[in-house]
C-alpha cells in the first residue's frame, strides 16, 4: 500500500492525518520506538499500545484499530506527546480515532466499557444547558450501564459530595442557550470529517 500526499484521503491513516490538527503528518514518520507505549499510564489496560496502533494503521488494519479500546483508554495525559522523538500529536490522534470509531459504528465493543456513551451523555447536557451537570451525567450513564454502581455512588460518595455542598441537584442553564444551540447546530452541519 502506498500513501501519497496529494491523493484523496482514502485509508484510515490518511483520514486520521487529515482530521487531526497540528503535525499529524509526522505519523508517517513513526519510528516504532515505543516511547509512547512505555510512557502510557493506562497502557497495561489497552488492547494495543499506541505504538502498535500506529503500526496497525500503517498496515491497513483499520477495523482492528477502530474496534480496539486503545483510544478510549487514553487518559489524555500527553506524556507520549511530549516524549515522541518525531513530535507526533499522539493524544490528538487518539481523539480523532474515537470520532472515527463512532462514525464507523465500531464503538460498542465490550472492551471499550461504554466510554463513548459517557462522552455522549456529557455532551448532551452541555448542548442542552451550556454547562456540565455531574449528578445528571453520572446518574443517567451509570443507571444505564452499571445500576449497582449508581446505587453505590448515590449512597456513598454522592452523599458525601452533597453534604459538603459539592454537587448540584439541578442543572444550571446559561442565559443565551439559544445562541449556543445555533452555533452548535451550524457546527454540526459543517462538522463532517475531512
Amino acid at each position, binding site marked *: 500500500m502506498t500513501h501519497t500526499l496529494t491523493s484523496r484521503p482514502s485509508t484510515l491513516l490518511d483520514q486520521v492525518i487529515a482530521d487531526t490538527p497540528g503535525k499529524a503528518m509526522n505519523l508517517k514518520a513513526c519510528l516504532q520506538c515505543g516511547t509512547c507505549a512505555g510512557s502510557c499510564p493506562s497502557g497495561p489496560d489497552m488492547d494495543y499500545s499506541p505504538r502498535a496502533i500506529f503500526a496497525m494503521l500503517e498496515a491497513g488494519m483499520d477495523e482492528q484499530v477502530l474496534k480496539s479500546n486503545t483510544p478510549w483508554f487514553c487518559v489524555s495525559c500527553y506524556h507520549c506527546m*511530549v516524549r515522541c522523538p518525531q513530535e507526533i500529536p499522539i493524544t490528538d490522534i487518539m481523539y480523532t480515532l474515537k470520532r472515527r470509531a463512532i462514525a464507523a459504528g465500531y464503538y460498542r465493543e465490550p472492551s471499550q466499557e461504554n466510554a463513548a456513551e459517557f462522552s455522549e451523555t456529557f455532551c448532551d447536557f452541555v448542548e442542552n444547558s451550556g454547562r456540565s451537570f455531574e449528578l445528571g451525567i453520572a446518574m443517567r450513564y451509570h443507571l444505564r450501564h452499571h445500576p449497582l*454502581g449508581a446505587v453505590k455512588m448515590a449512597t456513598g*460518595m454522592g452523599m458525601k459530595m452533597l453534604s459538603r455542598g459539592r454537587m448540584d441537584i439541578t442543572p444550571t442553564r446559561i*442565559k443565551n442557550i439559544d445562541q449556543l444551540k445555533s452555533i452548535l447546530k451550524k*457546527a454540526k452541519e459543517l*462538522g463532517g470529517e475531512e
Partner: protein
Amino acid sequence: MKYGYYPGCSLEKNARAYHVSTMAVAKPLGIEFVEVDDWNCCGATEMIAIEKIPAYALVSRNLALAAKQNGSTNLVAPCSACYLNLKKVDHYLAENKQLKEKVDQALEAGGLSYQPGTINVQHLLETIAVDIGYEAIKEKVVKPLYNLRVAPYYGCLVPRPANMERFDDPEHPTSLDKIIKNLGATVIDFPLKAQCCGGHMTQISENTALELIRRLLKNAADYEADMIATLCPMCQLNLDAYQDAVNAHFGTNYKIPVVYFTQLMGLAFGIPANELGFGKEIVSAQPALDKITEEAPKPVRTRERGKQHTELPMPTQAEEE
C-alpha cells in the same frame, strides 16, 4: 492588574473551594478578576471525542465572549482542562485555516466572531507564579505554614502538551514547588508530581483509575506528605473522593487531604480557613493543618557523607591484637 476570568463548571460547585480561595487571595495580590459573562462548558475531554467542529465552536464561543467583553486581554482559567481547551483552540485556530473558516461560520450563526491570538489564555498557576511572582507572594505571608509537609501536584494538562508556549517544564515543573516553599511550608520531593490522576476513567474503567490514584497517594505517603496541593478540580476530585475506594480496593489506609494551592496561600496570608473553602474536602485537612507551628523548622542537615576520603574507600582487615 485586571484579568478575564473563566471559572468553568467545576468551580461553580464541586471545586467551590478553589473558586472561593482564588477570589480570597486575588485581593491581597492585587488581581482583579472579571468573569466572562454567560460562559459555557469547555467540553472537557468529552466533546472532542464526539465531534470536532462543534468541540472547537463550543470553546470558541467563550473566547469570543471574553474578547467582546474585555477586549484583548489575559484570560485566566483555574481548571486545567478548561485552560488547555481554551489555549489549544486558540492555538489551532491560528494555525489551521480550514478549521478557522468552519468555526467562523459556526460563531456567525450565533452573531459572534473571534480572531485567534486576541486572548492570551493563562492557567491560574501561571498568573500567580509568573505575573505576580514569588517575591510578591512571600511579602504577603503573615502566617507561614511552618512544618507542613506538602506534595506539589501538577497533573497533566498544565505542564503538557509542550507544542504551545508554556511557562514550566512539561515533565519536571517547579513553579508550584516554589510558591509553596515561599509560604513557609516544606515541599517534599514528589516524583509523580506530573503524572495522571486517571481523569474520567473513574467513570469508564474504575480499576484503571484506582491504580493511577493509588500510585500518587503511595508516592505522597512514601515521602511523608501531610497533604497534597493541587491546581486542578479533576485531580482534587479523584484523589480526594476516590481515596476511600482506593483503600477498599487495595487494602490500604491512606488519609491524605488534597487541597487547592490557593487555599494554602490564603492560610499563609492570614485569611481564616472558613473563608477559603476548607471543610469541603472529603478527607479532612484539619489534622494536617494542626501540624503547622509558629516556629520555623530547624534546617535539615543533610547526612554527613562520612570522613573526607582523599582516595577511594577500600575494605580494611581487622587488626590482630
